[in-house]
């Protein structure tokens, strides 16, 4: 018996129209079609979604945790990048 495991897939679910697909987790499946079906069974059985994306986990390119100082640290001190210095007129709601 083969001990080879099925490849891992990352699953993204769009919960409703107009929202982005959101990463919800990962699962194993022998191919793309069955990855979609497994995702349907594992992640949408309680009405969580209207659309599914799957992508082989091996295709994800990730940033290196060792680079986090140079990648993310510089943004921490740049408070002026947040749009918090504007006065919102009284007439504007839902901001």
């Amino acid at each position: 018996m083969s001990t080879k495991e099925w490849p891992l897939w990352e699953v993204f679910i769009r919960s409703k129209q107009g929202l982005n697909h959101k990463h919800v987790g990962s699962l194993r499946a022998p191919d793309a079609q069955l990855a979609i079906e497994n995702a349907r069974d594992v992640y949408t059985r309680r009405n969580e979604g209207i659309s599914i994306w799957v992508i082989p986990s091996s295709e994800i390119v990730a940033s290196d945790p060792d680079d986090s100082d140079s990648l993310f640290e510089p943004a921490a001190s740049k408070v002026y990048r947040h749009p918090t210095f504007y006065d919102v007129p009284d007439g504007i709601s839902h901001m």
Partner: protein
Amino acid sequence: MNNDLYTYTLRIADDSLILGQRLSELCGHGPILEEDIALTNIALDLIGQATTLFEYAATVQNEGKTADDLAFLRYEHDYKNVLLVEQTNGDFGQTIVRQWLFDTFRVLFYDALQHSSDTQLAAIAEKSLKETKYHCKHSSEWVIRLGDGTEESHSRTQDALDLLWRYSDELFFMDETDQAMIAAKVGVDLAALRPIWMERIQEVVQAATLTIPTNNWKQQGGRLGKHTEHLGFLLADLQYMQRAYPGMQW
């Protein structure tokens, strides 16, 4: 009471209940986590269908019985499911082939039944058709992958098909109950579904590089309450709680 309508509804309900019970035996024992969940989902769908069908059968019967009475408190010979659905799970190939033969039939059956003149059966068929289409897609995809997979998966799937093929004929069993229901525009003429079923089965068989058995020995009896030895054990599991603690609820 309309005896034909009662029997007709009960036969559909029993197919769903017994296959649902069989599949639920795999809960926690599926070949892989994802497939465990998939099979359990299908089991739940089938038991959900059985619930509405039993509720309707109890109404038609009009003897003050509940859906639970019908599901849990009949004797073996009173169950009218086809022999196919009571067959044991066997290996994954056997579970999947059984499911696929049944699902392919069920899609066609519900598709026709949703035009029944009986509004209740039509509504149940329409609702059940959607989930059954998914079941069928799932089991068909698996038959193709197992058949056209490794040497081992191919031979196991072929063995399963050889074993279960003899029970496929009974899916199209019809007797005077069916004739009466067809005449009343309630029931489905299964003879008309058969060539389409065969066509769909052959499509998958071909893609799966499997062979339809040439042995045409056919086994039937379930629709009349004559079952294989497997049903009794299944019912013992299914009925234990209601027999041991009559009327218990949770």
